[in-house]
């Protein structure tokens, strides 16, 4: 049995490359949750039938929510702007369908936030399709960037950072490495894997489009070795087209899909605390985002749909689907055959390590929703006192001391916790995952950050 050093591994990794140490990964911390990808891995992407009602939130992205442009009774066509960016870090929102605005109302999102949303009743006949292919070879990088902004592309890995902001390289900075994030280290999720397998060509072309904008010296796709067939598939496609893109197989370890860990694993550079990837000459883009950029540039199709994994032990037929932004969770669930139990323990938007638990099945799909999971009751873990076992310290990929930060936050010493690096914590969950005493570390850090910032 060969497992990672000092990790509470639940899996055995017998891949030859692992044993021989030929593949890289980030060094510090990390855990190996059971990846559970086999549930939905084999299911080909299917399109969800047109729902009866779409709830398109104006807060689709990180930053300021978009300003709503429509009112009750307005007729919209697919791809029409219904919300416009308000602020530098903000993004456009488009109508996913031809239809009529039923109402503008508040909606509760999966992360618990309240946001304005446009409720659209789709027409029974959808006239607008995005099938005309445009030639983009004559476009300049400014024009490409403008269309990416105009078509509302945001990072689809979960953080939903507006992509046009990320790809705008300030004067005087250059990009050494453009890393495409095909790691998908969250358990259960297989959406990016299916995109690589089924839309490999589009993804590669998307990478070339982005390379035109940011002009990188190296282009790398990072993929974990549990998706070996995807690595081989993409390598074959690259060879065929002779693209200057490297595919890098990475050792499986959570949270490799985080840009900090991914850059450490691929180009062996650390982003300094509080800085951006660009400060070390790197740009990281999620694989789904690259696909969306390809569709935006060559079909003029805004980001109005995405690939989502519907999985978990509580789902009857785990699936990968294309769903329109605004589709209700209930429509996704019924497309996957519903629950196979009366009611699952948890409904999660995103992956099980960092996703949000929510209860309302009316909650709509956002641009950043990578998965909807229905989980069954886990093993029972009673919260006990900290026994200083050090698992959280040894597994923290950021090299923090979660045990000490927790103690400080519990005692109201927020400044002391921040001195220990609380703001470097990205809530990946490695500490709480590995804590044998079941202490809700991540929860306390979220609270500590909020209260600590307020006190300052």
């Amino acid at each position, binding site marked *: 049995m060969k497992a990672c050093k*000092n*990790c*509470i591994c639940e899996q055995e990794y017998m891949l030859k490359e692992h044993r021989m140490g030929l593949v890289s990964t980030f060094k*510090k911390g990390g*855990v190996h*949750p*059971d990846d559970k990808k086999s549930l939905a891995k084999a299911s080909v992407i299917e399109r969800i039938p047109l729902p009866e009602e779409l709830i398109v939130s104006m807060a689709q992205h990180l930053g300021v929510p978009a300003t709503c442009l429509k009112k009750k009774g307005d007729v919209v066509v697919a791809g029409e702007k219904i919300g416009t960016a308000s602020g530098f870090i903000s993004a456009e929102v488009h109508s996913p369908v031809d239809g009529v605005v039923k109402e503008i109302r508040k909606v509760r999102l999966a992360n618990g936030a309240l946001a304005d949303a446009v409720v659209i009743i789709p027409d029974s006949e959808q006239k607008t399709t995005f099938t005309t292919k445009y030639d983009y070879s004559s476009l300049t990088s400014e024009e490409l960037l403008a269309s990416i902004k105009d078509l509302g592309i945001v990072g689809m890995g979960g953080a939903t950072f507006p992509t046009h902001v990320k790809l705008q390289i300030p004067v005087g900075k250059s990009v050494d490495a453009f890393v495409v994030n095909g790691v998908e280290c969250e*358990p259960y999720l297989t959406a990016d894997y299916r995109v690589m397998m089924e839309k490999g060509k589009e993804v590669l072309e998307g990478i070339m489009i982005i390379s035109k904008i940011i002009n990188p010296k190296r282009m790398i796709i990072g993929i974990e070795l549990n998706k070996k067939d995807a690595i081989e598939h993409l390598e074959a496609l690259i060879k065929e087209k002779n693209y200057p893109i490297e595919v890098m197989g990475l050792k499986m370890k959570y949270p490799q899909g985080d840009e*900090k860990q991914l850059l*450490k694993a691929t180009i062996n550079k*650390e982003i*300094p*605390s509080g800085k951006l990837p660009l400060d070390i000459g790197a740009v990281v883009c999620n694989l789904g985002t690259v696909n969306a950029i390809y569709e935006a540039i060559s079909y003029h199709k805004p980001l109005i749909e995405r690939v989502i994994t519907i999985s978990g032990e509580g789902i009857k037929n785990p699936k990968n689907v294309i769903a329109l932004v605004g589709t209700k969770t209930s429509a996704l669930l019924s497309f996957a055959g519903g629950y196979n139990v009366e*009611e699952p*323990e*948890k*409904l999660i938007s995103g992956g*099980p*390590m*960092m*996703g*949000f*638990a*929510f*209860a309302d099945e009316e909650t709509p799909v956002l641009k950043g929703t990578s998965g909807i*999971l229905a*989980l069954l009751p*886990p*093993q029972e*873990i*009673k919260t*006990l*006192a*900290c*026994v*200083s*076992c*050090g698992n959280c*310290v*040894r597994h*923290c*990929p*950021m*090299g*923090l*001391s979660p*045990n000490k930060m927790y103690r400080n936050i519990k005692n109201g010493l927020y400044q002391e916790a921040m001195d220990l*690096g609380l703001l*470097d914590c990205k*809530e990946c*969950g490695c500490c*709480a*995952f*590995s804590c*044998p*005493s*079941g202490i*809700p570390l*991540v929860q306390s850090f*979220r609270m500590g950050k909020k209260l600590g910032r307020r006190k300052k």
Partner: protein
Amino acid sequence: MKTISSSPHVHAKLTTPKAMLYVIFALLPSALWGVYLFGFSALLVLVISIASAVGVEYLLNRFSKEETIFDYSALLTGLLIGMNMPPKVPLFIPILASAFAIFVVKWTFGGLGANWMNPALGGRVFVFFSFTTLMSSFAVPRTLAANTVSSATILSSLKTAVSSGATGSSLSLLEEATLPLTDFALSLGSTLHINPYAVDAFFGNIAGCIGEVSAFLLILGGIFLIWKKVITWHIPVIYIGSFALLNWIFGGIPNGLGIFSVEILLPVFSGGLILGSFFMATDWVTTPTTIKGQVVFALGCGFFTFLIRNFGSLPEGTSLAIILMNIVTPTIERYMKPKKFGYVKPVKGANK
């Protein structure tokens, strides 16, 4: 009703009560071997220490309105105390040791996770210094009973010989003291050209505390714990390694032999070193959390064990060395911090 809670929504399989049970399970072979060697009285000592440890924990639970019996930590403390007792010890001693361990060492500092010293070691050392004679009279193991009536341990007879001014290798000193050997050890020792006393110590045919005699079974248990990710290999390996190295270099000096003259196997397998290094020096609560810190901790344990055994007045120093390092653990923690991601140069004095 669906549950709403903060991420992560999945958890590793290891939990604290489970880890305690794993440690208990890993200790059982050695404890049972002790019961086989020393008979019913050993079993009685084990049962009494466990019962009193759990009993005191229960009483304290009644006062504090908590429920901590089923984290199994008191059970483990009781078992460790029992295993650290001489087989024929009067039964009030394990009761006293368990009560001291649970009440004074653990609860007065705030219960599980808050104690600064390993409770089992605290209890043992407390009764050792209170009743030194009773705690130093050992029984003859069943496997040697045919050969002898002497019940000195390897380390204590060595210490007696050396302090009376005798010189020579430990083998000759032990033979002079007519310490018994099994026939098996004699034959295996001569075929492998190693000290037959080390063979007996390895397999557990020596006098000693109930649970410390069989190095072999303890190492098996330790490997089980490493496999189950309850402990890492660093502390036991570095502890034993640094002790063996120091002993090899300097261990001959008290015997009048000079440096580089002592064999390694006998000191490693005799006494409580194996039990201490795998099961007590790896206690989660009282050892550093980082690997760096654990290395320093283990080196310190090795050094002090070497020092006490060879140059102190006591024959055995494992428990004292570990307690000593338990005391400096907070200091180690302060200086052996993990390196933060994205901090190339530590900014000196920037925060304060």
